[in-house]
């Protein structure tokens, strides 16, 4: 069961530098939300704030609240690891564990949670790999190193790894930026399928991609370098790309800046 995310006045810092300033938005369950904007606008920072990955960088911290079905993940007594299990993440560069086989990569999260029974792991691995459209390609070589796959396959492996623990939300941080067009297409198709079961938030530099895959789009921007990024406009993707209400959004989308 996917979750709904409400961000309320989220402000994120790297040391003294304010990266994003009071971002508030509501992300509906079982939808694909794209975060777009020029470099340094804070869209990745915002994404990483959702599952508290922002704070793993030394000196980084977040103010405001992010509520998942009404529960603030930044509450004092919340277990960070539980947040990250509930909200999975796929990174910009495919990052399978280099020392593990394909199979071990997929079930890494489950093993961490104490699942030890081989049968259970096998079922989960197949389910996740099928979910990531990778099963047919790797089913004969599950014991081979994950690092031996192509870039696109590695990224789908990482998606499989993320969904194997059955999260409620999947965050994707420019998942296709390191991939070729064919692999990108495969991932985009996959995103379309995944939204039936998960709430998906995706950061992308590619506006066509945002237009193709997302239901809603949030445009982030910054006044100038050194200023914090802000949420400029957040609306249905259709509207953002055809009839944005903000001039700056229009400029960005039509390629006049950024």
């Amino acid at each position, binding site marked *: 069961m996917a979750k709904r995310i409400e961000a309320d006045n989220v402000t994120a810092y790297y040391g003294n530098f304010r990266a994003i300033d009071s971002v508030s938005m509501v992300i509906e369950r079982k939808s694909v939300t794209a975060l777009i904007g020029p470099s340094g606008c804070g869209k990745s920072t915002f994404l990483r704030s959702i599952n508290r990955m922002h704070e793993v960088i030394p000196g980084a911290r977040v103010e405001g609240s992010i509520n998942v079905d009404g529960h603030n993940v930044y509450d004092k007594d919340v277990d960070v690891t539980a947040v990250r299990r509930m909200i999975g*993440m796929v990174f910009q*560069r495919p*990052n399978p564990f280099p020392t593990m086989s394909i199979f071990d990569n997929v079930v*890494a999260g489950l093993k*961490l949670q104490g699942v030890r029974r081989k049968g259970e792991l096998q079922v989960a691995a197949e389910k996740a790999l099928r979910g990531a459209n990778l099963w047919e390609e790797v089913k004969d070589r599950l014991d081979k190193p994950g690092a031996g796959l192509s870039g696109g396959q590695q990224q789908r492996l990482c998606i499989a790894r993320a969904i194997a623990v059955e999260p409620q939300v999947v965050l994707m941080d420019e998942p296709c930026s390191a991939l070729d067009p064919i692999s990108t297409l495969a991932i985009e198709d996959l995103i379309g399928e995944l939204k039936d079961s998960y709430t998906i938030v995706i950061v992308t530099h590619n506006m066509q991609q945002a237009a193709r895959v997302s239901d809603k789009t949030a445009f982030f921007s910054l006044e100038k370098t050194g200023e914090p990024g802000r949420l400029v406009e957040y609306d249905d993707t259709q509207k953002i790309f055809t009839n944005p209400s903000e001039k700056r959004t229009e400029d960005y989308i039509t390629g006049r800046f950024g």
Partner: protein
Amino acid sequence: MTDGDMNRPANTGPSVLPAQRTSENSFAGLGGVSSPDTAADEFSPRTALPSVEVPTRTAPAPAPDVTDAPGEPLPRKRRVGGEGYFKAVTTVGGSAVLAIIAAIALFLIVEAIPSLRANKENFFSYLKWNPNPLDDAHFGIASLAFGTVLSAAIALLVAVPIALGIALYLSHYANKRVATILGFAVDLLAAVPSVVFGLWGREYFAGPVTDFSVWLNKYLGWIPLFSSETGFGHSVLLGSLVLAIMILPIVTSLSREVFMQTPREHEEAAMALGATKWEVIRTAVLPYGRPGIVASVMLGLGRALGETIALAMTLGSSFLISWSVVEPGGNTIAANIANSFGEANQQGRSALIASGLVLFAITLIVNMSARAIVRRRKKFLAAAAT
């Protein structure tokens, strides 16, 4: 091969050369040799063609041009000059290392032979060390080799877990400032000379270790390691613990470096799966660092096997094969060289050199395997990166 081995862009045919040269000349006017920084910044990869190469490439075929008068021929490459001498000097410097290692092996063998000829016992199986009588030399390294391996093994057993703990603490637990200060403290530990550790071990540390030995013997004396028939004191345990303290910084600093190299992406991948800190270390850091850990342990082992003066000062120097680590005794090849050198005559020295040759061979093997592991790791990482 004097100039020809520099990196150059592949696409520079002779036809672009005139333009190339003028642009270089103008650059040369802008940035002087005295300011390499600015010069380096201004050169794009294309213009970075080493100009000294130009003559060799164009000399055979100056493009025939009808309109312009043929210019002066380009200067030819000089075969002999500063470059050649300089390269020769550095080659000699580099080869010195190979020469020294070969010389070590050669001279140790040459000097060891006379005593080995005079020896009336099997060098590898005899326990005692009595090489000085000219016509009646009896010596072997069996007990010394046993003692060397035993004390090194105990030292590793104690030092490695602690060293890995410290390395993880410095790389993943302590904040940056604390890690810097504490890392410095570990470096200081590495800088303390072994003779000072020996002095400390003999004059001070022997006390608590003896107390501890008595206690171990009282409650665990039924284990051969902790049994004692001759009392307590300068024992294998004391020597090994001093040794452990000495190899700690070596293992720590190398494995710390390996742990810090763990790619952020791998750690973040584990975190994003909801791993606790320890689980991140277990899934991402330790598997990645395993070859590095093995190599650092091997280096520590090499150091432990070769340590001389601290052990000469803390071990009881016996020539027995005894499993007890608490009773006075213990000896190593290196410590025996230091202890027996003073009273050795020419033949005795030759015998000590023979034992040193064995030590050299052992440490050579250990170090070479450690380096081979590190090298394999590099290849492994290169393969994983593609």
